[in-house]
Every structure is written in structure tokens, then in C-alpha cells.
């Protein structure tokens, strides 16, 4: 079946199977930052922004997203011009193996879009679905708070 998706502000017309999950469709379309992890909505490595909301793309049927706006971490920044969140993750040691980073960054982005000046508790809550086994969570909280400060200034 045909599916129209707006991925990272670019319209895509995709040929999908009715039961395809969004995570698989995005990866097949070249968005490899959307990682496969648990496939049951627990780990958050497949996080994307669906119409601005951070969701597990492993729990979403692609066919249910007709006309939706999707953002993956590829939309955030580049090596040459990283997003303030990406800069802060590096600066604060919030990245080690990096597997969780795309998801964590997008959850953080969704939070900062809604609340440019979040509290530590709000950061913790926004990232409660993104597991990170390397950094112990503290570093990414520091990074997000620092990025929010930088973005506001």
C-alpha cells in the first residue's frame, strides 16, 4: 500500500506492507539513526518525533501514520553544525556507546519544544522511556539542562 510521510520536512511516498512497523519503514528508507532495540516499547532506541510527540516507533503501525510529520535525529544537526543538544551531550559526557543517543536526543528535543526551561524533574520524566546503560543518566540530565540554558540565551 502507498504511504505518504513527511520525514524530516521532506515528503516521501513509500510502498509499504499493511502490517509494517514504523521503525522498519524508516530504517528501510535510510533513516538508520532509528535503532532497533527491544521491539516492545521498553528501551526507547527507536524513538522518533511523530507530529511533534516523542514515541516508540516499534509500537506504531506505519500505515496509521498517513500524512504524518516525522522527525528523526538526522533532522537535528550535522557534524559541522551540531544542535546545542548534541553539543551538550558530547561536552557533558552523555554519550559513550551512543546507541541510545538518537532516542534520548529526540525525547529531549520534544521536551524543549514544549518547555524551553525545564526542571530536572521534567527532564527525568521526559526521558523516562530512554534507557542508557553507559552513562548512568546523570550526564544526560546535566547536558539537557545546559543545552536548554544555551538555547534560551
Amino acid at each position, binding site marked *: *500500500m502507498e504511504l505518504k510521510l513527511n520525514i524530516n520536512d521532506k515528503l516521501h511516498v513509500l510502498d509499504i*506492507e*499493511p*502490517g*509494517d*512497523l514504523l521503525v522498519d519503514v524508516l530504517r528501510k528508507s535510510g533513516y538508520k539513526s532509528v535503532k532497533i532495540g527491544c*521491539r*516492545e*516499547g*521498553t528501551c*526507547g532506541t527507536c*524513538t522518533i518525533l*511523530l507530529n511533534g*510527540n*516523542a*514515541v*516508540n516507533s*516499534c*509500537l*506504531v*503501525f506505519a*500505515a*496509521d501514520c*498517513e500524512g504524518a510529520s516525522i522527525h528523526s535525529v538526522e533532522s537535528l544537526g550535522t557534524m559541522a553544525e551540531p544542535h546545542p543538544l548534541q553539543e551538550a551531550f558530547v561536552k557533558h559526557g552523555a554519550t559513550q556507546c551512543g546507541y541510545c543517543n538518537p532516542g534520548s536526543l529526540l*525525547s529531549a528535543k520534544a521536551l524543549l519544544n514544549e518547555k524551553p526551561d525545564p526542571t530536572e524533574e521534567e527532564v527525568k*520524566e*521526559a*526521558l*523516562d*522511556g*530512554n534507557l542508557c546503560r553507559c552513562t548512568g543518566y546523570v550526564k544526560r540530565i546535566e547536558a539537557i539542562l545546559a543545552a536548554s540554558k544555551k538555547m534560551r540565551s
Partner: protein
Amino acid sequence: MSKIKKFYRPENLDTALELLSDEKNMVIGGGTTVAMNVPGSISGLVSLKKLQLSEMKVTGSKVEIGGGTTAQELYKWEGINNVWGGILTSACRNIGSTLTRNLVTVGGNIVSVFPWSDIPVVLMLLDGNVVSTGNNKVPFQKYFEKSPVSQGYGKDKIITGIEIEKNTGNEGYFWETFQKTKVDFAMTTICGLIKTENKIVKELRLAIGAVSVLPVRLTGVENALIGKELTESALREALKKEFENVKIRDDFRVSKGYICEVTENLIVKNLMKGL
């Protein structure tokens, strides 16, 4: 290779019901449960997304919440924060993670009704109705007497929303869940409200979830304590008696005796603390 061969996005309830009359088709709200495990006999999915059932509003003494409202939308909605002491907000906050709350719908949560589902146990406590196609209304307590799927919900009836009568505001409330980690399925969930006058219990409502297949209202305990002074010993005695009648489900993580004890202690802690 997915077993799903057809995906429907009907634009009105009549078309959705017609599609659901085919036994090979299954309704989805957020679709999170089905995405993980498509039942063997199902080859078509009927999404309710285009029906736009996600309106939330306060009308007079009533709060109306569309079946397509996500748990996160409900959690963040100020209209429900102060209704019934905010226990529905607490329950929604506990559903999975932010990522899953952005997908899980109210309708899906009360049709699928897993033992650990957070919204149903709170609804058992409240005055209000489940509203389905044809504006059919069923009080929460009656709705959860039997499995909603066995009553035809999600097949010949589609849940369009829930309506909650606002409370008087003179009661005390509690809601608490017991789980190993934040995203673990609850082992027990308790919620209740109490109203006392000169230490005498005037109103008491208690509901528990996760310990049994469907949420349970502890009417035996309520009846035993209303009109009396609340003491810890009387409460524990009434709870022990009531648990004899509750069919505790098998849970590989905990023994039945242990979970009854935890449930009892949580209720005692919350009720006695409030006095």
C-alpha cells in the same frame, strides 16, 4: 512477514463497525498492544485515528474524555487535575513511559484491560460511564464486571469516550502502585477515597488492580467500615476477609500471599495516614 494484509482507516463510526463485523478484522486505538503481538486469527486492522475521538471537555458537573485521547494528553490536561483528587492524573502518569503514553489511548486501555492497566482501577472508584457507539452508557463498575471484549466492545461496540461526574471535593484520596521499576507492570495498584466526620467513616470507596484479571471494588470492606470509627485492626480484618473472595491471578514474580500482604499494607498505610 506480517500477518496483517489489510489496514483500514475509516472516517466514520458506521464504516468502522461494518469493517469490524468481519471476524478477521480487529480494532486498534494507539495500536501498541497489537504492534507487539498480532492475534493469530487477525489479518486486518481498523484504526480509529481518523474518527477524531480525542476531545476533552468539562461540561457542567461532567468531565468528558474522548476514547482516542492519549494517556499523555489526559495526564497533562488541567481539566482533570483537580477532579477526584487528581487520581486519574496519577494513574495516567504511571502508564509506561512518556514515549508509550504518547501512543496509548484511553479507549484502548479500557478495552484491552490488562491486569496492570492503570486507568481501569481508578474508574472503578469514580461515578461515571463508559460511552460507546449509539451513545450507550454503562457505569464504570458494571463495565468492568466482565471482560469488555467478551461484551462485544471493540467488535460490535466502539468506545467513543468516558464521562466522569465531578466529585464534591470534601473527600480524601489516594492512589499507589507497587512495581519493581518505573516501567515494570504493576504487581498491585490501590486507590481509594474516604470522607469522615468526627472520626466516623461517612464515605469509603476502595479499588484494587493488577492482583486480579479485572479491577475489583472492595465493597465488602466499604460496607464493613462505613458508619464506624476507622481503626487499623478493623480495617485489616475487613481486608483479610475480602481477599478471601478475590480471585488473585497467578504472577510469576510474586506469591499470592505476598501480594495480598503488600496490598493490605498499602491500603492501611494510605487510609490511616489520611485520618
